[in-house]
């Protein structure tokens, strides 16, 4: 039979049993819907994490002490720190690709000011830091190079700190005390939200690293050097270049391993991303089980239908239908049912995902690929689970089928 005739015959018999068709499709509808919702939540989480990682700063490069082969935390690196201001300055001076470089040191301490006190982390950085982190100011200004060299007692507050200490009023120009050292607040940063692993990035105070080293922590070592390139495509080249500059700066011989690690934002992102990928897969797998159950439902109904319509099959064969005609008829029937069910499931999944997203505040995302995969999958379910009953029908003997009561 022609394709159009086949579809017509199939939809006729589907329409003749509306209630049964609906119940059969329900299995597929729920299965596909569940897959869509689960994948939407998973992909939503992924894109949220991607956003947060993007928030870390554009084209970020992080240099940490210790070789990557020893996990960056080798004992040697811990006991004898090999990152210095000299390294940072050399990168800043010599790198062609990295346009912003900042050493980073930090310490946690109590601060007093405004309406109360608050325990937070003080990050010592250079003025390049807000360029690297792509972090705009909400009010006031950032400190400049001369203030840094002069070890001025100026700080810029993260959003959370500003709220904790000053509530709604603008702290710019106010004085706070950090470990009994009075400092001046010259600006407040825009909120940046949480890191992928759930830390509040706004719970921070930025200060010239010179001041932090000399007046607060008293340590001379540098924990990290951060850098960034103007263009994303330059990141790999910048990494190579920085590694070379670092080797030179550390006087490493040809045969010596790097005693530092240069990582980019993607390296940082990969770990977090793979976690959520696993989660998405897991959710989708769980949801697929319901699709499987839906498929078994289709097979069940198709088997019942073949038995119930044995006479019809006999009649069709008696007037000249070949086994293959009967096979395709039943196969098309189950495919039409599962694809229509799949489409309703996609629509339902869309709806539920956006409702869940709104109710919980999770971000959800549905890609066209997800929809395509869901539809292809449900058609395959139709073929797979429809084949056995269809073949059973096609193998009937015309005379036995006609005699069937």
């Amino acid at each position: 039979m022609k394709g159009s005739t086949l579809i017509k015959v199939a939809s006729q018999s589907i329409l003749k049993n509306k209630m049964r068709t609906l119940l059969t499709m329900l299995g597929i509808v729920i299965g596909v819907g569940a897959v869509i919702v689960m994948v939407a939540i998973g992909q939503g989480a992924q894109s949220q994490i991607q956003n947060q990682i993007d928030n870390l700063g554009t084209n970020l490069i992080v240099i940490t002490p210790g070789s990557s082969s020893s996990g960056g935390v080798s004992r040697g690196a811990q006991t004898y720190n090999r990152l210095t201001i000299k390294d940072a300055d050399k990168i800043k001076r010599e790198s062609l690709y990295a346009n912003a470089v900042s050493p980073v040191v930090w310490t946690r301490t109590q601060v007093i000011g405004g309406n109360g006190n608050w325990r937070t982390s003080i990050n010592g950085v250079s003025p390049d830091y807000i360029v690297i982190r792509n972090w705009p100011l909400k009010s006031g200004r950032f400190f400049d190079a001369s203030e840094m060299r002069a070890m001025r007692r100026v700080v810029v507050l993260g959003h959370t700190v500003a709220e904790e200490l000053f509530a709604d009023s603008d702290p710019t120009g106010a004085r706070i005390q950090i470990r009994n050292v009075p400092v001046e607040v010259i600006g407040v940063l825009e909120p940046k939200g949480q890191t992928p692993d759930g830390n509040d990035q706004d719970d921070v105070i930025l200060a010239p690293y010179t001041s932090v080293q000399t007046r607060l922590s008293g340590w001379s070592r540098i924990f990290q050097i951060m850098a960034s390139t103007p263009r994303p495509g330059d990141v790999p080249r910048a990494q190579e270049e920085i590694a070379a500059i670092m080797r030179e700066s550390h006087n490493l011989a040809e045969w010596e391993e790097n005693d530092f690690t240069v990582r980019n934002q993607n390296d940082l992102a990969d770990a977090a991303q793979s976690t959520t990928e696993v989660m998405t897969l897991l959710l989708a797998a769980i949801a697929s089980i319901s699709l499987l159950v839906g498929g078994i439902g289709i097979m069940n109904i198709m088997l019942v239908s073949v038995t119930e319509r044995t006479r019809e099959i006999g009649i069709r064969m008696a007037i000249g239908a070949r086994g293959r005609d009967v096979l395709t008829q039943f196969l098309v029937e189950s495919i039409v049912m599962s694809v229509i069910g799949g489409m309703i499931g996609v629509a339902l999944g869309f709806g539920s995902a956006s409702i869940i997203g709104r109710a919980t505040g999770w971000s959800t995302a549905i890609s066209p690929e997800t929809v395509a995969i869901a539809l292809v999958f449900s058609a395959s379910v139709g073929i797979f689970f429809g084949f056995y009953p269809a073949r059973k029908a096609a193998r009937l003997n015309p005379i036995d089928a006609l005699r069937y009561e």
Partner: protein
Amino acid sequence: MANDVVMHTHGVCKVYNMGKTKVHALRGVDLTVRRGEMIAIIGASGSGKSTLMNIIGCLDYPTEGTYHLDGVQVENMTKNQLADIRNQKIGFVFQGFNLLARTSALENVELPLLYDRTGRKMKARTLAREALRRVGLSDRMDHEPSELSGGQQQRVAIARALVSSPAILLADEPTGNLDSKTSVEVLSLFQELNAQGITILIVTHERDIAACADRVIELRDGLVIRDEAVADRRNAAHELTTISVPEAAPPS
């Protein structure tokens, strides 16, 4: 006059294997049907009439013997070839009508042409209308079987058997489910079609139905025991005009 022969069986046997016992339904049937004949096959219950019909109708294989239909040898054909033979050369009318439920008369009649592999699919609608007109059901084309009387349903079935212009029309007790008046109507239709040149084979229990044919074959225990022309052929159409039972109102 060999080209006059529509079908010919020689030594057709059918054995049903029922586990330990074997049922010999046919024990060597020789039968020749010529074009334009109307033959009645009679015999007691269990004599093998339906078995023979099913073999002639290519719904079943003979255990032994040869069978030629419209110039082709049938007994060794594959399932698909048999399906095509049923589609193109045979029109089968059953006792229980065997129409597709919830499907209009027109669609039922069209059905054989949807499986047609000789290019008549395009004309299915037209041919189906024509066949329904031939059985006098032009005004019932959109009715479903449940909206038709028994006689009308059987006429739809006859139209379906006719639609692909088969070499032979087979009917296994076509009036078995009908009352006597409707039976006469259906028989009159068969006679009319036969008069138009269609070869017809009817299985029946009743001798007065057999009397409508021009040749009667009697089976007993799977063997042909009588094969003779009907001397005084009944004219069903004529009887219809004489027995004046008021026509039942057609169901709406």
